[in-house]
């Protein structure tokens, strides 16, 4: 067997990364907008109607049957999606079946993983799964960070995942799409049924490009299943199962506005900064995540819009009840939604034609003819660490452990103004560091850091500095913020890492921006 990784080079942000991983060739990061793909997009084998039932009934007796029909075997790539978040039950079933069948060395290609996927650890230990290419956090993050995964993990953004599939960088053998509502032909949506989760956009790339596509549902409806975010024409097999997901865990997550006075201050400063920068005007657009601070920023925006009698043209979301209320209160014309975080979001997308589903293709894909993320006026994102050059980390914790997926984070950096509203330190650990543990986003795309102790604007954004200059905001340099945090918290030690690479972080264009190293456990 070939080495896990090889051909280490230094990339354009000074990080040492392998150009050969798991026996496949990759390209090191060249700089923002520098890499140009060549050739054509990947196309799956051409199917024929002659091989599918005329009555459209593609049902199989069980998930196992469907996997067998799909030709599951050693070394394949199997993809699943995270629209059920921590309430997903199907991914674990798939690999339990594979284990039962004695299949080895699978690549699991989820759009994200959650703590509910802890059983995968056993499959990695027993060799059923070779590696995960997708976000790893919680128990999986710990397992991989401690060097226990056989292959090297590959972490991609939502847009990067679409790009990798579309470009043929990742060839999916079998995609299993868990759907809250589907018909026997395979048309499917996320808005009806007990496990309604809103959207299925994360499964779009897989539906379009996988060799075999299986749709599993616990809510089989008569043809046609309307709306059909996933077209049955892409689907090979359908399966009816007892339970597709655990509804109360599907809508879990941080969906409440923060009550912490410190986070509210960060949110208020963020909104005030946006105001000073002239961003909040009639017809603007914004995106903020579902975290408590981000939601609070949206609420401050809403207050400003109400007072001035203006509205946003669109909100890009991650939606839940707060942006939905803004839409319904007439404070925005549209929500362009990538995933829904609560039942209000699901209801709204089902009922309101101005609450529109989007996908990683429309919103994020870098190898397309533009995407929505770059058209957003301002985006608020998180980060675990930022360095004095505004490079940021969203994947690993300061102790080196993988903590978060990239999600749409990298893709969103292309917004006109990118703001990281983050506390200056968390449980004593300063956020601003000399060097980020893992570099996920280049500083040239990160414009502003807003902390409870002050706002640092990237010196490259002279325009923002000029606008914010006399607005009574607590502007500081990023170095000043760093010194302040260290003055309070003391100087942290550097994380204890081995030389061994256990994962790589892809940039939005498929190049490798950084490597993730094994954490020293002794």
């Amino acid at each position, binding site marked *: 067997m070939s080495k896990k990784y090889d051909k280490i080079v230094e990339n354009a942000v000074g990080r040492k990364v392998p150009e050969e991983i798991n026996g496949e060739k990759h390209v090191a990061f060249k700089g923002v907008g520098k890499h140009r793909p060549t050739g054509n997009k990947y196309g799956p084998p051409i199917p024929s109607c002659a091989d599918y039932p005329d009555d459209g009934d593609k049902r199989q007796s069980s998930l196992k049957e469907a996997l067998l029909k799909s030709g599951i075997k050693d070394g394949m790539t199997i993809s699943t999606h995270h629209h059920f978040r921590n309430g997903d039950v199907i991914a674990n079933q798939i690999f339990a079946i594979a284990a039962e069948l004695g299949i080895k060395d699978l690549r699991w290609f989820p759009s994200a993983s959650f703590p509910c996927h802890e059983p995968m650890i056993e499959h990695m230990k027993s060799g059923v799964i070779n590696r995960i290419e997708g976000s790893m956090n919680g128990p999986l993050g710990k397992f991989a960070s401690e060097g226990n995964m056989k292959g090297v993990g590959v972490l991609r953004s939502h847009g990067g995942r679409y790009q990798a599939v579309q470009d043929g960088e990742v060839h999916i053998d079998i995609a299993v799409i868990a759907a809250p509502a589907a018909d026997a032909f395979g048309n499917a949506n996320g808005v009806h049924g007990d496990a309604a989760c809103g959207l299925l956009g994360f499964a779009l790339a897989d539906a379009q490009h996988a060799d075999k596509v299986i749709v599993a549902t616990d809510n089989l409806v008569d043809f046609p299943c309307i709306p059909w975010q996933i077209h049955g024409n892409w689907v090979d097999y359908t399966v009816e199962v007892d339970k597709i997901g655990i509804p109360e865990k599907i809508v879990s997550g941080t969906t409440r506005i923060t009550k912490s006075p410190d986070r509210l201050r960060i949110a208020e400063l963020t909104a005030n900064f946006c105001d000073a920068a002239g961003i909040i005007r009639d017809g603007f657009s914004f995106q903020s995540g579902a975290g408590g601070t981000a939601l609070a920023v949206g609420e401050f925006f809403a207050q400003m819009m109400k007072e001035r009698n203006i509205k946003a043209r669109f909100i890009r979301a991650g939606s839940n009840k707060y942006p939905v209320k803004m839409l319904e209160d007439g404070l925005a014309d549209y929500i362009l939604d990538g995933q829904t975080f609560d039942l209000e979001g699901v209801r709204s997308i089902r009922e309101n034609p101005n609450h529109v589903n989007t996908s990683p293709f429309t919103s994020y894909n870098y190898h397309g003819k533009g995407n929505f993320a770059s058209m957003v006026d301002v985006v608020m994102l998180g980060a675990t660490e930022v360095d004095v050059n505004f490079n940021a980390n969203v994947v690993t914790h300061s102790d080196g452990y993988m903590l978060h997926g990239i999600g749409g984070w990298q893709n969103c950096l292309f917004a006109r103004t990118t703001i990281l509203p983050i506390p200056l330190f968390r*449980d004593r650990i300063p956020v601003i560091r000399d060097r980020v543990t893992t570099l996920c986003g280049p500083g040239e795309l990160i414009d502003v850091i807003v902390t409870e102790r002050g706002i640092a604007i990237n010196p490259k954004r002279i325009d923002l500095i000029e606008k914010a200059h006399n607005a009574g905001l607590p502007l500081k340099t990023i170095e000043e913020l760093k010194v302040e945090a260290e003055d*309070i918290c003391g100087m942290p030690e550097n994380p*204890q890492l081995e030389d061994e690479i256990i994962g790589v972080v892809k940039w939005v264009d498929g190049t490798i921006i950084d490597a993730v190293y094994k954490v020293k456990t002794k």
Partner: protein
Amino acid sequence: MNKNIYKAGNNGDKVRSDCYVEILRSENPLEISLESKVDKLYGNNIRKLVKDVAAQFEFTHGTIRVVDTGALDFIIVARLEAALRMATGKEISYLLPQRDDNREPGKKDRYRFTRLYLPGNTPKLMLNAGVHSPDGLILDLEDAVAPDKKYEARFLVRNALRNLKFYGAERMVRVNQIPQGLEDLEYIVPHGVNMVLVPKCESAEQIHSVNKVIDKLKNEHHIDNDIWLMPIIESALGVIKAYEIASSTDNVVAMAIGLEDYTADLGTLRTDEGVESFYARSQMVNACRAAKIQPIDSVFSDIEDMEALRENVLRSKQLGFEGMGCIHPRQVPVVQKTFAPSEKELDKAKKIYKAFEDAKAKGLGVVSLGSKMIDPPVVKRAQRQIYVAVKTGLLDENWINKE
């Protein structure tokens, strides 16, 4: 319970930024165990601190178990000191170098629109409190600390006075009721406290007894700056004695009212409108003005309703109060903004102020604005509003030359 176990600090699911210490005395050589959320980044530093503090106490046999949830050094050593004092009976202080800015003496005439209460044994709430820019931060040793935590809270409050970043807020401590509160003073007076809040105050003697201890400590520790006092009136008797207390000594610079206890003493309930406390509040303001000190109003306890808070502050301002206690950081800007002169008030004050200056320059005995004569008390009020506006940053010091 094992009598040889000594505990300090808080532990549990919701505890953050704190440190729990458990000490077991035994015949075995010292063993230190550390569970820390930040072990990989600060573990070595914490272990070194633990060894250091143990060495100071010459604690060489037994175990020290530390559970750290991201506490800063001054918190860790406060917990260690509390537990080691109990375990060894030795009265040794382990102090980190004091922050330079925490040595600044307090100013008598600074404005005290907002003072934010912080429970004296809850480090998590202290760390960012100053960022919300209250005029004062009160480390509370009295009602916000459970009786069985009073002992360890003193060390935490002492260390916070020395090492917490206050961001320019006045460093205040509310001690326990006198006479118990007198014992608190040795933990705060030598450590940079600007102002001591004396709760449930009912007589000038209580203030004198506080000052006696303060003077003794100042003498011992060679402190020559003043330490200001803010008595809190919380009973019917206190209200009757308000002027006596307000004028008791020179270092009483403000006096507050505590309405929860006061209304309980009256046998009535506190309402938002405050009809039941109108007499007491008026009496307070009157006593304070007579003694030329700042009258400060009670806290407003509904932390969710900012509009009700604003209305409350407006009533308070109308009664003549000059500040209010806050129990949540989000109350600070609301109280601050409402107490400060409004734009309209300020515009009028500026006109009157200028008219007065003009009249003075021209040697006129009478101030007039347009065709209207301005009475001296009106001028005085305007001057006061201008002063407040300058003090609170609403108005540039040189506004008169700039306009």
